[in-house]
């Protein structure tokens, strides 16, 4: 179970958000650009340090004191795939697997599952620097999931991708979150993407504060603010 209270002061914005998430559940953070969604995720991941608050995952205090990045049991995916260009695709995907697990049969099967489901077989030995943007997103997703983290944080990971690929990646993520059992927090400013990815619940952020939380149907039927009404309205 994840329990979070993040306070982070920025020049023009003070983010102050609390959230709770049961194991295996998913949560969408929705709002306009600059509402503080990415800041919340970055603070949970440890990329940024909150000014105040706490982060607890499965009764382990991640902050404060700030647990080093490499000890945080989570996966973090952003718009930037961040592949290691000096390694091949397969080496990227296996990058975070500890040596003692690299020969483990179950681990190998899981890697093969990721490879096949994300259609990465033909790219396996290609240099990571030579693949396309869409392929790189698939590789970074596989790399994050290869370690089977209990919590997955997604910061607009599908921005700029074609709709077909986005649908496939979302379906894969939802499928694995149910089969593997990881919790998921996703950020996006497109309601339809977020709703498909995190169908259970969402928190709406405006100017760093949560203005509404609950099921998607409630957000659509009773939007708490005019801005939210406008964001949810069809184009």
């Amino acid at each position, binding site marked *: 179970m994840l329990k979070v209270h993040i306070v982070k002061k920025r020049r023009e914005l003070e983010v102050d958000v609390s959230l709770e998430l049961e194991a295996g559940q998913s949560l969408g953070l929705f709002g306009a650009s600059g509402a503080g969604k990415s800041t919340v995720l970055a603070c949970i991941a440890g990329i940024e340090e909150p000014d105040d608050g706490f982060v607890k995952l499965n009764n382990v205090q991640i902050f404060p004191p700030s647990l*080093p*990045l*490499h000890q*945080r049991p989570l996966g973090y995916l*952003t718009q930037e795939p*961040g592949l*290691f260009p*000096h390694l091949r695709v397969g080496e990227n995907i296996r*990058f*975070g697997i500890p040596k003692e697990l690299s020969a483990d049969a179950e681990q190998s099967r899981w890697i093969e599952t990721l490879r096949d489901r994300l259609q990465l077989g033909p790219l396996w030995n290609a240099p990571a620097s030579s693949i396309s943007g869409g392929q790189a997103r698939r590789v970074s997703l596989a790399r994050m999931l290869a370690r089977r983290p209990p919590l997955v944080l997604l910061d607009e990971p599908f921005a700029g991708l074609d709709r077909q690929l986005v649908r496939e990646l979302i379906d894969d993520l939802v499928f694995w979150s149910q089969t593997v059992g990881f919790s998921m927090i996703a950020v996006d400013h497109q309601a339809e993407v977020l709703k498909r990815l995190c169908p259970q619940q969402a928190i709406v952020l405006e100017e760093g504060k949560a203005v509404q939380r609950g099921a998607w149907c409630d957000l659509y039927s009773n939007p708490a603010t005019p801005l939210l009404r406008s964001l949810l309205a069809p184009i």
Partner: protein
Amino acid sequence: MNPSILHNDRRWWARAGATVFALALLYPLTALFAHIGPWQWSEDVRGPALASVRVSLLLTGCAMVIIMSVGTPIAAYIARCRMTERLVWQAVLLVPILLPPLALGILLTLAFGPYGAVGSYLERFGIVMTNSRAAFVSTQVYVGMGYYVLGAVAAFDAVPGILQKQAALLGLAPWKVFWRVTLPLSRLGLAVALSIAWVRAIGEFGAVVVTAYYPSGMPVQLWVNLQSFGLPAVMPLLVVFLAVALPLPWLVHVLAQRRRHA
């Protein structure tokens, strides 16, 4: 007039100008074919000259090992510093770079000689820091360290921070991130930094001639030959000097430029 012709015309002039500039830069090398009479390579010239080649290659190699082993972690630390602290370290590194070589040599002799605290302490253990191999190596370390560390900081800076954070989030401890991500991605930049330090150290004359006249490296031996025998005795050693000092750094720079534009 057709604009593309005008464009090509301007391009031609620019290329011609650049060619003249390049020829002017390379012009000093034509002195290798100057008519100064037969080159002198008699035994009294050859012996010390070959000894100086050995001294330069061996001791500059030692200096590079020290520079790399000490300078790389220092550069990695500076690359992670906030701007204010980084400026302080960079200002310190600039001191040996900006000191006139002769002044640096005199300061090193005084600081590490029998009058300096460190020099007198080392002498108790039989380590003499003037006119010795230790003096030669330490002078080269002082001469080259600033160049290497500043270049290495730039090489580490060029590695995208997101990759290092991703590696950490994939469970790698900081030293593993450095070993598996930062170092491989900055190795060409480090090689460029080392090649600059190499050229600077192996070619150093002003500081070395004060701290370590003996054992003589190539620059000092060139000076000795010039003083004792004249230009014909300098030329063979000069060719060797250019052959060992230039090709490797030149190749590293060409490779780095190619990689940058790939």
